[in-house]
């Protein structure tokens, strides 16, 4: 069977295939699974789940509030693992640093979402958007710490310098997570204690409520995996283009120097100078 080129012959033919982005079959599978889980979350969170005896309808906000902070915790733990792997392995692969950076970026956005959704929940439950309560304050501190981490990543220097600096911060910053989690027990707090992951192992939730929360955690975990896959790949390309840009600039500079040294200087006539 023969095929014909549908393009007119006057048009320039470019046989090079279009270059591809960060998507693969893996990201598509994870992305579709995340979308399905999100649809389930909305259906259960806003529809099928019953209202709470004490919190009434405001409990529905917890089906996004808890999974978003779960995503942030997960992201920051991965940042710490990536940082540790960069610092303490012989190979010092920048891939670990990029994983740490991508993960911190995603986690920081979702801490911000947690704080805003939590403020809406607080307004319905406590009557105020914000209180300088131990849990709220430590979460805000966590957000500021990771904004600082991302700022440090943007300081100048080589990729290796960036990786070294940020890895140290990534390993220290993760220590805030237990502080945030246990803040409700360490200090007298307005925020409720953990309902699922508490110390006595009891789950004080209705079955459908627990299922809605579970769907939320699965949905946001899948979303995290999808986002981090895309972002680490984009960061790898950014680093590559950075290196190429530097190489090209150096080559251009060398070529300029060679041209200048090869060009004979024009003879200067002292009398002719005005």
């Amino acid at each position, binding site marked *: 069977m023969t095929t014909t080129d549908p393009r007119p012959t006057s048009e320039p033919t470019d046989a090079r295939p279009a*270059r591809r*982005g*960060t998507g693969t079959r893996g990201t598509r599978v994870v992305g579709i699974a995340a979308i399905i889980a*999100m649809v389930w979350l*909305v259906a259960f*969170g806003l529809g099928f789940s019953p209202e709470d005896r004490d919190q009434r309808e405001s409990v529905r906000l917890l089906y996004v509030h808890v999974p978003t902070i779960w995503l942030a915790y997960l992201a920051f733990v991965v940042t710490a693992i990536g940082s540790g792997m960069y610092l303490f392995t012989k190979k010092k692969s920048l891939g670990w640093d990029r994983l740490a950076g991508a993960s911190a970026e995603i986690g920081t956005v979702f801490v911000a979402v947690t704080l805003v959704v939590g403020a809406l929940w607080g*307004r319905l439950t406590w009557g105020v958007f914000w209180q300088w309560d131990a849990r709220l304050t430590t979460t805000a501190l966590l957000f500021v710490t990771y904004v600082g981490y991302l700022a440090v990543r943007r300081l100048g220097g080589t990729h290796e310098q960036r990786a070294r600096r940020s890895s140290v911060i990534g390993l220290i910053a993760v220590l805030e997570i237990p502080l945030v989690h246990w803040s409700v027990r360490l200090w007298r707090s307005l925020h409720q204690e953990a309902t699922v992951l508490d110390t006595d192992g009891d789950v004080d939730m209705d079955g459908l409520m627990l299922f809605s929360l579970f769907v939320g955690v699965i949905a946001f975990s899948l979303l995290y995996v*999808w986002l981090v896959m895309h972002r680490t790949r984009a960061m790898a390309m950014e680093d590559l283009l950075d290196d190429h840009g530097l190489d090209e600039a150096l080559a251009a500079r060398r070529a300029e120097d060679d041209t200048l040294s090869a060009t004979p200087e024009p003879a200067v006539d002292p009398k002719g100078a005005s």
Partner: protein
Amino acid sequence: MEDAGFIIGGYVLTFATVALMAWRYVRSGRKLGERVPDEEKYWL
């Protein structure tokens, strides 16, 4: 549903953030992908 504005607002804010992040990441991936040869992309 009582306080529907706050609850739906919370969901809208969350999913709008998710959509915006997803769109930005895919778009930046495509733009960067145009400038980098496929041989350099370890995921392909």
